[in-house]
């Protein structure tokens, strides 16, 4: 089988990683994979990407969607996930949508509904589920090694990405919506549970003067399994930091503790050419596993590992965090 994939928009930089992964799978896999083309409302960016990944550039999303694709990867601005999903769902049987699923719960529900109407499978891109250290933690938790879970202390730090990520209308928020969804998705997946209450402190222009949007967030939450925890979603890594950020998880239970620093398999590189220390990741690339999983889903006809509903529930916690910060009190979930 030859799996034909298209890509809608390179607004989110993960698109470049996903395209590189598609190429890697095409080179290595027995299942044929073809990156049929790229459509982007920024034609310069789209054409450059098409040339970089040796594929076609399409001037309109509609024309790309007419290419009898098996799947489409949407890496547009958060607020444009819904219109592009509504355009793609009737024409393409499989959609991989970048996180967060959308900027409002109404948009997220509309995306889930339109995919259900057309029998299109919708997967949300939460690559951290595929990180081997995170998967090992999941296995330890599944075995019940820690006994009753008391708390989970987490961070998903990053650099301030700029561009549309700091535009309220396109991104739906700043650091909190950008980063909380990854870890919230992991917690829901670890214990097949939900967040029942969120309290949040949100900082606007706290680490980046005049940014005009939230760049720091600290969520304190309760889980339905009876545990509590915190999540630091801040864009608190400066340009001089040796890597993009982190995903750190500390699970404390009645029998012990597991500490995960998911991307801490690095060489330390100090090069006068960049003038700063850098970490070179030698661990396994979770993006590659995410894209392989999407291709396998198409090839085998199975259901998505990460659903639109998973995307919606993670978004709901981020939105609840903003609401809590506005009100200065804990917010109960579901909203």
């Amino acid at each position, binding site marked *: 089988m030859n799996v034909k994939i298209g890509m809608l928009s390179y607004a989110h930089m993960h698109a470049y990683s996903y395209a590189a992964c598609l190429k890697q799978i095409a080179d290595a896999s027995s299942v044929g994979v073809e990156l049929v083309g790229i459509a982007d409302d920024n034609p310069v960016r789209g054409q450059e990407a098409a040339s970089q990944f040796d594929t076609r550039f399409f001037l309109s999303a509609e024309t790309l969607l007419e290419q009898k694709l098996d799947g489409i990867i949407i890496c547009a601005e958060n607020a444009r996930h819904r219109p592009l999903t509504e355009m793609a769902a009737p024409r393409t049987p499989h959609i991989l949508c970048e996180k967060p699923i959308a900027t409002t719960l109404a948009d997220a529900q509309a995306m889930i509904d339109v995919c259900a109407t057309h029998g299109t499978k919708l997967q949300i891109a939460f690559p951290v589920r595929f990180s*081997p*250290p995170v*998967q*090992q*933690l999941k296995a*330890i938790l599944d075995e019940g*090694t820690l006994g009753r879970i008391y708390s989970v202390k987490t961070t998903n730090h990053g650099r301030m990405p700029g561009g549309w990520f700091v535009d309220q209308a396109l991104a739906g928020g700043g650091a909190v919506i950008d980063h909380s969804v990854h870890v919230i998705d992991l917690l829901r997946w670890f214990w097949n549970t939900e967040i029942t209450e969120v309290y949040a402190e949100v900082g606007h222009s706290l680490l980046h003067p005049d940014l005009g949007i939230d760049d720091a967030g600290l969520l304190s939450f309760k889980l339905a399994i009876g545990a509590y925890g915190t999540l630091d979603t801040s864009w608190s890594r400066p340009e001089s930091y040796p890597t993009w950020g982190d995903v750190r998880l500390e699970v404390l239970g*009645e*029998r*012990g*503790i*597991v*500490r*995960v*620093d*998911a*991307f*801490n*398999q690095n*060489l*330390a*590189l*100090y*090069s*006068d*050419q*960049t003038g700063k220390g850098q970490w*070179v990741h*030698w*661990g*396994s690339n979770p993006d*590659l*596993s995410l894209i392989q999983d999407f291709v396998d889903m198409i090839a085998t006809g199975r259901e998505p590992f990460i659903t639109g509903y998973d995307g919606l529930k993670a978004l709901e916690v981020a939105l609840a965090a903003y609401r809590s910060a506005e009100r200065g009190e804990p917010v109960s979930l579901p909203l």
Partner: protein
Amino acid sequence: MRRVGIVGAGLIGTWHAARWKQLPVELVGFYDIVPEMATEAVAKFGGRLFDSLDDLLAAVDVMDVCSPTPHHNMPVLAAAAAGKDIVCEKPLARRPGEAKEMIAACQAAGVRLFVAQVVRFFRQFSQAKAVLDSGALGRPGFIRTVRGGASPLSPPLVGTKGESRRAWFADFEQSGGVIMDVSIHDLDFARWCFGDVERVFARGLTFAGVEPYDHALITLRFKNGAIGHVEGSWAYPPGRFRTRFEIAGDQGLLEFDSLAPAPLTMILRSDESPQAPGIPRPHSPLSPRDDPYFLELAHFLNCLESGDAFLVSPQDGLEAVTLSLATIESIRIGRPVYLEEFEESLV
């Protein structure tokens, strides 16, 4: 689908078997001079128990030689004579003369010979080579490596299951000690990074009469002027095996230490579990596709299909043996050994 047979069902043989099971080959079975070991491997990985090397050879397309070092030569020569492609565990041989004989036999028979210098397939090391090749370090100048742990025959390993199977490691005549068994990985990696070695000077415990401990501090000068330091140890106290390297150029430095904080650490409160309470247990997991033994065997198969050269040439395997032996010679005579002169002296 190619049929693969394994000679030598010890540690490496079973590690390879587990990876062959994940690759598009048929693992036909095992031959071992200790039949119980082959029987155990068959129980675990399937395939047949073979009574002789010839029987195994007759049933395979690829021979994977995982026997102890002094027993690489004979099965490789037999496989070449039978026209089979070959994976040979490192070191290629105990002595350069044997290695040359094996390479010549494979060439004459037109079969492919892959020397399993697996460190080149560890992602830490392959990424380091990629960074070096990217030019981010500038002109290479210095490489330092560490590889070591407790002796394979020191307490508490003595008396454990498999002790007798490991006994050959402690016999210098058979294994070549820590230099030929352990440091050869880093000598090969250093050659991969910096090119051929001009001279080697080394000090160590190899002839100090402190068996089963062995240890070496190796000084290298490369033909391009760069300097190398390689430490190999079977003399550390019991504990975690350690690998470490740094590569310095005129514009940068690259560092790795296997004892750096791991991406996953578990500490358990009680002794309800088999592990001691309060002792951190570090883990550094990878996707199965990034496992170095999987990568090296997948690379071998891909090169058979494509006809491409192996990342480790038979000559690289020979050079690693020669450099290891020159290192041992330097310890013995207390003087630097020049590789070209040393090679001539072997002829």
